[in-house]
C-alpha cells in the first residue's frame, strides 16, 4: 500500500465525519437538502475509507497517523485488527442511523445543531476505535462525552435537561478518573503505544501494587460509559434522548466506547496473561457477571419500552467485559464478536422502539398489544433483534453466547455457564412477553397518538428500512458466521494476534 496513504488514512477517517459535521453547524435551519447532502456525503465517504482500511489491515499493512502535540505527547491513530472491528461497526451503523435520523427529525427544530453534534459524536467514536495510545484514547473519550451531551439534552424539556446533567456528571467524573489513571501509568512507563499482547508484563514486581491501583482507576473511568453496576445510573436517565440518539448511544458510541476501552486496556496495555496474574481478571469477571444479572432483573420490572431496552443494554454490554475477563482465545472471540452483535441487535430494537413511538405514540410495553398487525415489518425486525438477544440460533446473539460458554469451559470457570444460563432465562423473561403482546394480543380501539404518513408502507420509508436492514444483518451475521470478513472471522483474527497464536 502506498506509504503516504498509509500515514494519512486513519486521520482522514476521523476527519471525514468531523469536517462535514462542523460545516453542518453553519447550515441554515431550513436548508434541508444541503444538510442531508453533507450528512450522507460524510457517512458514505467514511464508509469507503473504512473499506480501504479493512482491506489494508487484512493484508497485514500498518496504517498509522501521528501528530506531535508536544514533546512526548503524541496523537496516534493506528489501525489494527481490533480498531478495524469497532470502526467498521460504528461507520456502517452511523450511515444507517443517519438515514433514520433524517426521517425521524423531519419536522423538529434545531436540526443543524443535532446533526452537527451527531457527526462529531461518530468522529469521536471512530477516534476511540483508532486511538493508538492512552492519551489519544482519553482525548477522544472526552470529546465523545461533550458531543453526546447536546444530543441527550436535545429535546429541551426539563426531563431532557435533567437526564443530560446526570449523564454529564457520571461521564465527566469517569473521564477524570481515566485521565488520572492514564497519567499515572505514563509516569511509570513513559510514552507507550497500544501493542497486541500488552506492554506491562516486564514491569518489576515492586510496581505491581501501583499497576493494580491504576487498573482500578482506568476500570472505574471506562466502567461509567460501559454502564457496569454500580456506575450505570446515567443510562436509564438518558433515555429521554430522541430514538436515533438512544440507538447510537447504546449500540455504537458511548456504551461501546466504554466496553471497547476495557478490551483495549486488558489486551493491549496490561496484556491478558499479565492481567490474569495480577488477579485483575477475576475482579472484572465478577463485576461483569453481577452487571449481567442485575441489568436483566431490572429490565423485567420496566414498563417503558426504552427503559427496558436500556437495562437490557446494561446487561448485554457486560458480555463484552466478561469475554475479556476470561483467559483464553475462545472467550476473547466471544466477547469481541458480541461487540458487533450486540450493536446490530440493539440498534434494531431501538429503531423499532422509535418507530412505535413516532407512528403510533406507543411508549410502553403495556401499550404494545397488537402492534404486530399494525406494523408487521417493524415488529418482525424487533422480533429478530429480541430473539437474537435471548440467544436463539441462527441469529447473531447465539454465536456470541456459544463462544462465551465455550471460553468459560476452556478457562475452567464453570460458574460463568450459570451466569449465561440465568441471563438467557431472564432475557427470555423480559423479551418474550413483548413479542406475545405484539403478535397475539388483539389490536386496541385506538393508538395513543397515531401519525399517518403519506406512504404505502406501515410508516415512513426512512424509518422503516433501517431496522429491516439491521435485522437482516443480525441474521446474516449469525447464518454466515464462518464467511470471510464476518464479525466472527475478524474476532478470530484479533484473538490469534492477541495471544500470538
Amino acid at each position, binding site marked *: 500500500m502506498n506509504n503516504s496513504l498509509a500515514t494519512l488514512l486513519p486521520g482522514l477517517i476521523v476527519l471525514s465525519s468531523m469536517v462535514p459535521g462542523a460545516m453542518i453547524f453553519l447550515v441554515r435551519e431550513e436548508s434541508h437538502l444541503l444538510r442531508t447532502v453533507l450528512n450522507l456525503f460524510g457517512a458514505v465517504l467514511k464508509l469507503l475509507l473504512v473499506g480501504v482500511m479493512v482491506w489494508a489491515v487484512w493484508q497485514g499493512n500498518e496504517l498509522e497517523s501521528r501528530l*506531535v502535540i508536544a*514533546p512526548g505527547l503524541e496523537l496516534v491513530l493506528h489501525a489494527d485488527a481490533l480498531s478495524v472491528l469497532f470502526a467498521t461497526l460504528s461507520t456502517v451503523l452511523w450511515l444507517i442511523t443517519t438515514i433514520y435520523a433524517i426521517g425521524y427529525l423531519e419536522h423538529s427544530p434545531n436540526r443543524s445543531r443535532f446533526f452537527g453534534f451527531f457527526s462529531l459524536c461518530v468522529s469521536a467514536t471512530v477516534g476511540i476505535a483508532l486511538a493508538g495510545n492512552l492519551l489519544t484514547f482519553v482525548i477522544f473519550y472526552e470529546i465523545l462525552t461533550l458531543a453526546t451531551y447536546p444530543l441527550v439534552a436535545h429535546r429541551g424539556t426539563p426531563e431532557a435537561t435533567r437526564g443530560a446533567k446526570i449523564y454529564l456528571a457520571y461521564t465527566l467524573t469517569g473521564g477524570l478518573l481515566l485521565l488520572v489513571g492514564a497519567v499515572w501509568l505514563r509516569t511509570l512507563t513513559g510514552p507507550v503505544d497500544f501493542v497486541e499482547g500488552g506492554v506491562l508484563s516486564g514491569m518489576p514486581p515492586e510496581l505491581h501494587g501501583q499497576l493494580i491501583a491504576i487498573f482500578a482507576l482506568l476500570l472505574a473511568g471506562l466502567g461509567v460509559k460501559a454502564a457496569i453496576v454500580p456506575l450505570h445510573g446515567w443510562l436509564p436517565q438518558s433515555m429521554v434522548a430522541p430514538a436515533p440518539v438512544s440507538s447510537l448511544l447504546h449500540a455504537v458510541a458511548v456504551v461501546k466506547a466504554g466496553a471497547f476501552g476495557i478490551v483495549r486496556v486488558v489486551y493491549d496495555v496490561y496484556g491478558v496473561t499479565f492481567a490474569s496474574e495480577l488477579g485483575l481478571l477475576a475482579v472484572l469477571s465478577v463485576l461483569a457477571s453481577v452487571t449481567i444479572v442485575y441489568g436483566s432483573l431490572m429490565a423485567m420490572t420496566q414498563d417503558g419500552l426504552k427503559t427496558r431496552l436500556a437495562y437490557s443494554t446494561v446487561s448485554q454490554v457486560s458480555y463484552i467485559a466478561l469475554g475479556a475477563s476470561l483467559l483464553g482465545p475462545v472467550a476473547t472471540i466471544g466477547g469481541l464478536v458480541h461487540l458487533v452483535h450486540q450493536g446490530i441487535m440493539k440498534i434494531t430494537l431501538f429503531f423499532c422502539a422509535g418507530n412505535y413511538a413516532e407512528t403510533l405514540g406507543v411508549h410502553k410495553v403495556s401499550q404494545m398489544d397488537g402492534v404486530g398487525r399494525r406494523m408487521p415489518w417493524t415488529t418482525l425486525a424487533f422480533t429478530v433483534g429480541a430473539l437474537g438477544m435471548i440467544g436463539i440460533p441462527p441469529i447473531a446473539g447465539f454465536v456470541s453466547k456459544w463462544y462465551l460458554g465455550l471460553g468459560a469451559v476452556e478457562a475452567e470457570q464453570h460458574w460463568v455457564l450459570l451466569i449465561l444460563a440465568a441471563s438467557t432465562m431472564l432475557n427470555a423473561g423480559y423479551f418474550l412477553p413483548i413479542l406475545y403482546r405484539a403478535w397475539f394480543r388483539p389490536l386496541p380501539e385506538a393508538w395513543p397518538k397515531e401519525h399517518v404518513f403519506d406512504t404505502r408502507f406501515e410508516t415512513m420509508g426512512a424509518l422503516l428500512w433501517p431496522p429491516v436492514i439491521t435485522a437482516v444483518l443480525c441474521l446474516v451475521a449469525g447464518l454466515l458466521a464462518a464467511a470471510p470478513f464476518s464479525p466472527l472471522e475478524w474476532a478470530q483474527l484479533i484473538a490469534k494476534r492477541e495471544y500470538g497464536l
Partner: protein
Amino acid sequence: MTPESAFDSAALDNLLAAPLVLAIMLPLLGSALTTALPRLAPLLGTLIAVGTAGAAIWTTVAVWTRGPIHLVLGGWDPSLAIALRADGMAAALVLMANLVGLAISVYALGYFRAPDRAQSFWPLWLLLWAALNGLFLAGDLFNLYVMLELLGLAAAALGALTGSRDAITANLRYLLVGLVASLTYLFGVALLYTAYGTLDIGLLSSAIAADEPSPLDAAALTLMVAGLAMKSALFPLHFWLPPAHASAPAPVSAALSALVVKAAFYLILRLWLDLFEPILDLSASMLLGLLGAGAVLWGSWQALRAERLKLLAAYSTVAQIGYLFLFFPLLAATPPGPSRDNLLAALLLMALTHGFAKAGFFMAAGLVQTNAGHDRIDDLGGTAQRLPATTFAIALAGSALIGLPPSGSFIGKWLLMQGAIETGQWWWVVVGTLGTLLSAAYIFRVLSRAFGLEPTPIKFVTDARAEVPALMLSLVSVAVLGLASGPLWTLLGLNASGGGA
C-alpha cells in the same frame, strides 16, 4: 530608526530593537492621538491595534529565529538605562496578549456604539496595551515598576467606564489595592537597589547568586512577591477582583481577566525563576502552591454559586490563576531536564490558553448581556438559543477553562499531573481533579440553559463583528493550543526532542 541609515551591526541592532520599541511606542502614541482627535478614535485605535499586533508578531518571529533579544536602547541618556529584553517566555506572552488585544479592539468597535463611550475607551485601552507590552518586554526592575503602575491606573480607569455606582466602588478599591501592591513591590526593589546598586535583572541575578543568602534578599523577595500576588489576585488576596472584573464593560473585563492579571503573574514567575532561584527552598514554593490550591477550590466554588455570568467568569479567573501557582512546588522539586522543561512549558501553555479562553468567554458573556439586558444565569434560556455562535464561543472557551481535550489546558493539566506524580506530590492531582469537576459544574450550569424549548435560530452568526472575535479566541484556546503546542517548546528554547518520562 530605519536600517538603511546606519552601518551593519548597528543596523542589525536597530532592526532587532524596532519591533520591541514599536510594540510599546505605537499604542502609547495611539493613546495620545486618540485623546487629541476623539472623533477619529475608533478608526485610529483600530489602525494602531493592527500595527501593534504586527509588531508583536514581528517580535515573536525575531525571538523564534534569533533567540533571546536584550537591548539597552542606543542613543538614550544612559542614566535612564531603559533595558528591553525578549526571550521565549516574554515573546509567547506578548504574542498572546496582542492577538487577544486585537480581538478585543475589533469587538469594542461593535460594543461601544455610543460615541462618548468609545472616545473614553480608546485612549485608556491603548495606554493599558502599551503598559502591558512594556511590562512583558522590560529588562530592569524600575522600568517594570513604572509599567506596573501605569497598568494599574489604566485598568482601574477602564473598569469604571460604565460609570455605575457599583463599578466605581469596585474599581476605586481595585485602584487602591493596586497602589498598595505596587508600593510593596517598590519597597522590595529599593531594598535590592541599596544592597546591590543595580536594577538590571540579569546583573542582579548573578549578584544574588554570588552572595550568601541574606535576610535582606528574603525580605525583598517577600515584599515583591506579596505585592505582585495581590495584583495577580492570588487567594486569599483576590477579594478585589470579582467585583471589579464583573462590573467592567465586556471588552475591558476581557482585557483585565485575560491579560492584566497574567502580567502580574508573569512578573512573579520571572522574579522566582530569574532572580531568587538561588535563595529559594521548597517550603516557599510549597506555600505558593498551597495558596494556589486554595484559589482553585475557593474560586471554582464561588463561580459555581455565582448568580451572574460575568461574576462567574471573574471567579473562574481566580481559580485559573490558582492552577498556575500549583506549578511552583513542582518546578522546585524537579531537577533541570526534560521533565522540568515540560512543566515550564505546561505552565506557559495554561497561561496562554486561559488568556485566549477567558477573553473569548467574557466577550461572549458581554454579548449575552447586551442581548438579554441582564446576565442572570438562571434566566438566560432564550438568549442562549437566539445566539448560537455566542453560545458556541462560551462552550468552547468553557471547555478550555475546564481543561477538557483538545484544549491547551488539557495538555497543561496532563503535564501538571504527570509532574505531581513524578515528584511524589500527588495531592496536587487531587486538587486538580476537584477543581476540574467544580469548573465543569459551573460551565455546564451555564450551557444547560442553551437547550430550552425556545424558538430556533435562523442563522448561526447574528452579529459578525462581535461574535467572530469571541469565537476565534475560543477556537484558538481549544484547537490550536491543544493540538499544536509543540512550537511553544521551541520558542521557549527548550529541548523539543526529549519526552518527559
